[in-house]
């Protein structure tokens, strides 16, 4: 069932040895770099000559457009009606009931299913057209507005899930119940790592600023490798404390001593290997060296002191504060530069059940400039072509108000039947607006995109046919996109 795992392990080990020779500068017998390259099938993987370790034989299925992905997830579900899905006609419907012909008895969360009426709350925010594409966007996203021609906006996302926990889990893993691998793990497992000093899948969390924002939970299961090997789980890169858990030496142990200790440890482990010939010992020696390389490279990664002022002109002064979304985006760029394959960012506080006009501007201000700067920065560096950027939530929000509706105040409940997200770079066509919803932003009228279709599209950009990429688990060939049909959204491909 998993023959390739053994091959993986050997290949990874050889790659480690190869770089160890470079690093430690001592000659350990191993296979030559040339042979290594061919063993890894490097030619098939990339034209840029980035070395890849691990990954599945036969992948990618076809040349990849995206080598890396930066996935910005807005936890809590941003309201599409106030940001992306312009519905000018709604102002005439203020406080009128949502017509039953639109709702069609659809299931609601138990937070509003008891409401006696469903009064329509038009967005209080102004919309305008931007760019050559003339894309309509809310005034809350002035920076995003400047790059509408770089992004593809999908307005017709839909899902089955109506609560956060299952909906995010579904977005990330293709199943509402925890236990399946997430997208980042699938990609790392399938395509391997392009960096021998850092994990191939990194997770970052950005702070939100509004004190009364309604915050939803996330959990380690969202970046878990599920039934794939744990080595494909996301590794947290943190803005406080140790940037990577346990990366810093204990007090009184400088790097110089760590190096001495690892040399001696490696030698003794080598002696053990000579006695017992357990390949796991060999792997362990390599992993300690990888750990040391991480210890050396993580400080360099997180040290932003050499970033020029122009960086902060682009990302904003907020990017100087650890943990802000802007700083997280900057860190995501630095990770992408180092060829970390999958970078997952979470920003919370989007669950605007109430006080939306007060909270939403703050949430948008948190993320707008950072997301814009990230895309522009990647573009300037020539990396946008092969780096996919995603900006999404887990579902949408209702046109009707949850709780009391006034001219200046309203809230919105969860809405799975339509919502918006955008993607950029990595094989995505810019300036595209995909799909249309009805005048209430309630139902999709044209070109629906299911979460599965989104997942299939991400896989496609990585050169993977989602239908042919599975893992045998409990007797089933499990795919990220599950058993139901999923289609690549061709209209947004470059």
């Amino acid at each position, binding site marked *: 069932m998993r023959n390739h795992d053994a091959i993986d392990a050997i290949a990874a080990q050889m790659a480690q040895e190869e770089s160890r020779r470079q690093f430690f500068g001592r000659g350990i017998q191993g296979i030559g770099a040339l042979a290594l390259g061919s063993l890894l099938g490097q030619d098939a993987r990339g034209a840029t000559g980035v070395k890849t370790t691990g990954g599945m034989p036969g992948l990618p299925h076809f040349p990849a457009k995206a080598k890396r992905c930066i996935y910005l997830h807005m936890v809590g579900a941003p309201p599409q009606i106030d940001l992306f899905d312009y519905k000018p006609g709604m102002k005439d419907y203020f406080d009128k009931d949502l017509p039953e012909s639109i709702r069609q008895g659809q299931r609601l969360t138990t937070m509003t299913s008891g409401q006696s009426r469903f009064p329509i709350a038009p967005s209080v925010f102004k919309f305008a057209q931007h760019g050559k594409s003339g894309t309509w966007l809310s005034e809350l996203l002035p920076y995003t507005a400047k790059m509408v021609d770089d992004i593809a906006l999908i307005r017709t996302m839909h899902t089955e899930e109506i609560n956060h926990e299952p909906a995010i889990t579904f977005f990330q893993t293709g199943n509402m119940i925890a236990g399946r691998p997430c997208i980042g793990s699938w990609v790392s497992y399938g395509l391997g790592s392009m960096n021998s000093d850092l994990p191939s899948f990194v997770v970052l969390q950005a702070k939100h600023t509004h004190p009364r924002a309604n915050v939803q939970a996330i*959990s380690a299961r969202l970046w*878990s490798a599920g039934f794939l090997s744990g080595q494909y789980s996301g590794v947290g890169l943190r803005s406080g404390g140790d940037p990577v858990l346990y*990366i810093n030496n204990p007090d009184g142990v400088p790097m110089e*001593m760590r190096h*001495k200790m690892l040399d001696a440890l490696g030698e003794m482990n080598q002696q053990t290997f000579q006695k017992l010939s357990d390949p796991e010992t060999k792997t362990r020696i390599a*992993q300690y060296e990888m750990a040391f390389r991480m210890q050396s490279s993580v400080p360099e990664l997180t040290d932003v002191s050499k970033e020029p002022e122009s960086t902060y002109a682009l990302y904003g002064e907020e990017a100087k504060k650890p943990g802000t979304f802007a700083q997280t985006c900057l860190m995501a760029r630095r990770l992408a530069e180092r060829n970390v394959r999958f970078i997952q960012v979470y920003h919370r506080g989007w669950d605007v059940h109430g006080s939306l006009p007060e909270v939403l501007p703050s949430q948008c201000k948190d993320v707008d400039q950072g997301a814009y700067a990230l895309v522009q920065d990647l573009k300037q560096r020539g990396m946008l072509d092969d780096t996919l950027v995603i900006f999404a939530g887990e579902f949408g929000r209702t046109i009707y108000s949850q709780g009391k509706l006034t001219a200046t105040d309203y809230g919105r*409940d969860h809405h799975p039947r339509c919502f918006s997200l955008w993607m950029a770079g990595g094989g995505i066509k810019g300036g595209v607006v995909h799909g249309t919803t009805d005048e209430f932003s309630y139902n999709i009228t044209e070109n629906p995109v299911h979460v599965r279709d989104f997942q299939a599209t991400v896989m496609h950009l990585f050169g993977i046919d989602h239908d042919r990429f599975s893992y045998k688990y409990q007797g089933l060939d499990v795919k990220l996109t599950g058993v139901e049909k999923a289609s690549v959204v061709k209209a947004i491909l470059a």
Partner: protein
Amino acid sequence: MIDRYLASPQYGAHRAHYWLDAARYGDTHGIHVDNYREMWPYRDWVIHAYNRNLTFDQFTIEQLAGDLLPNPTLEQRIATGFHRNNVTTNEAGLIEDEYAEIYAKDRADTTGAVWLGMTVGCATCHDHKFDPIPQKDFYALGAYFRNTTQRVMDDNIPDTPPIVLVPALEDRERWPQVSARLGELRTAMAKARQQEPAAFAQWLTNARPTGARPLDTASEWFTADLPKLAEGAKQAKMAESNIAGRAALTFTENEGLPVPSSPKLDADQPFTIALDFFFPKAEQSYTLASQQVTVKDPVLGDRTQGWVINVGGRVVGMNIWGDNGQNIEIRAAHLEQIKHGTWNHLIVTYDGSRHQSGLGMFLNGRAIATQGRGNQNVVLKGAIALDQPLLLGRSLKDGAIADFRIINRVVNESEAYLLSRWTAIDAALSRQAASTADREALLVYYLSKQDPAFGKLASELTALNLEARAITRRGAITHVMNERMDQMPSANILFRGAYDQKRAKVEAATPSVLPPMPADLPNNRLGFAKWLMRPENPMTARVTANRMWQEVFGIGIVKTADDFGSQGEPPTHQELLDWLAVDFRENGWDMKRFYKQLLMSATYQQTAVATPAKLAKDPENRLLSRGPRFRMDAEMIRDYALASSGLLNLKVGGPSVKPYQPEGVWEAVAMIGSNTRFYQRDGGDKLYRRSLYTFIKRSAPPASLDIFNAPSRESCTVRRERTNTPLQALVTMNDTQFMEAARNLAQRAYVAAPVIDGRLDFMTANLLARPLDGPERQVAIKAYREYAAYYDTHPSDARKLLQVGEKPTEKAPDMIVSAALAMLAHQLLNLDEVLTK
């Protein structure tokens, strides 16, 4: 030697960590808010079950159906926590049917994986051509586990019913007596209320003086004179109400009405506050009564002191703050939400213990479920009493208060009932004519005041309630199964597994591919558990023997320990497995005997050396060509470091502990309101408990264990992964726990021998059970000299190193030597040979 290990209490602790993976034991609910769940008595049950060598058939029956055994013992009920370990939710807005299905599926999947070696969940949506479990069987199996009194929403409380109280050892004998006597008293008092004494009717017609009180004068501490308070007040007035036709203090503004000369409540003083109030609007929060100040503190920030009784989210509650700003709180459970536009009577009792568990609540005369025990470690510090007057209705616009009393002790159920009906009783007494609705209340009043026998029962009840509360505080709660007796277990088949696509109803049944359940067994969990252990059942013994083999050899005879079906891997040694299974069953499911047999086997005791020939033919050692050699489990790695350093605390059982963990692991994922948002590390010897006692927050499992593949315990795991990653190296190199262990091992070596050679021998004897050979020794000593040379020139680093971890380094004559030895110990602790079994 093997017998000694099997007899040690640590045997059970070790075995338990495997079983707890299968049982998906954790210390939080798992989904969404992921609050604390009090469940550790179940974990301790597992440890003790192994230690007293409970046979596997009994072990099974008690965990799956202990509650259905005749006259189940407390232990047998605790055991049923097995199927209360599944993750649960309280996310607002969810649809309960959907989660009822998810819970049932989890229990069916877990049972299937643990006892049947079958992945029954594959059949959730539809039949599969080659799968022995059709869809109907999946729902029929799940039916056994969903016929429960448990609600879907866990209420975010630590003690979601059904639960049992597990008294502390010193209370084990007394507790059944107290609870039995409480039952008797309540029955006797209820009976008295159903039989009107002959004199009652006569008494009813008698004229009475005004000024009656619900309780005795000695107990009634304070009664608010509402009409007097309203005089001249602009924020409230006496107005007609629909409560007993009486006027009530009605608030016209959100501004409290001060109550002059009200009593000062304090932390060591028991009290009961009782009030009748009108709740105007569902979506608004109200402060009913309070006595509180904000104390400005320029250093620590502002803090609150005093108390407040309020309604928020339609739930009543009370908070009490001591003078260090910490508060204890009682809040009605979610299912006790009150309706707006109604009168409600609230009683909060406090026993003067300073503990959160010293609070109790009655709503409309009835003791109600409250939001559990919260953070049990919180204790009130200092005083709560203030000079500020008590305020009624600080924010209660459009609401009203009809009665407000403070009593100087904890009231019992009968008194609570009287208080809750007092407005009506008082009105009836003064009218001198009772309506039928008041008659029962008047009878209770009559009995309390006029019937000495009833009074005796009532005062015994008061005393026993207090004792029960104290026992509860000393004890623990654990979650158990409780069968619904009003229906037989059944389920609906769901079209494509969708909760809202209910199809045919099926009775609970065992999978049709296996021998049927005999007719003499009851068709419930108990019958199912007994059926599992029947000799004709081919799966249980094989699956269990295989799992035990896997624990010892690192890999099962059937590698897919959770899947013996056609989709799993075939056994490498079919006959061996068959023999082991039969042997296990025929020897009375004796687990200690079985483990001993494996450990004594020539297969286990052969050398672990892998020759090139063996590696080529048998790379994974599936053919058992050599002795088992595999990286230890997460818990063992940490425990081994602690044990070899002499730090390990061998205490068995008790609440979970929180050892070292990097900052921010919990906060990074937690909800703001979660009571497991901030990781408050324990100190002292709790840092050195065995790892199976480490608190498991399921949405952010213990970081160092997680990295070594310890499952998050969100679902059943019968086969752990065993990866070999750089992050693992970072843990054993940099986790405070491991460096502290190294430091302590070095300290012991320092004392044990005068020179480096002897010290090295001491350390390797502890870690490897052997001295190093020549070449190894050379490397180790050379490294030690390098360490010493470094610390000699960097004494401040030596000092820092010797301060890693909480346990102080005892005064060492030579700091440089100690630091260099600590580094050497640290190096040895990271050896492949140490990390590998």
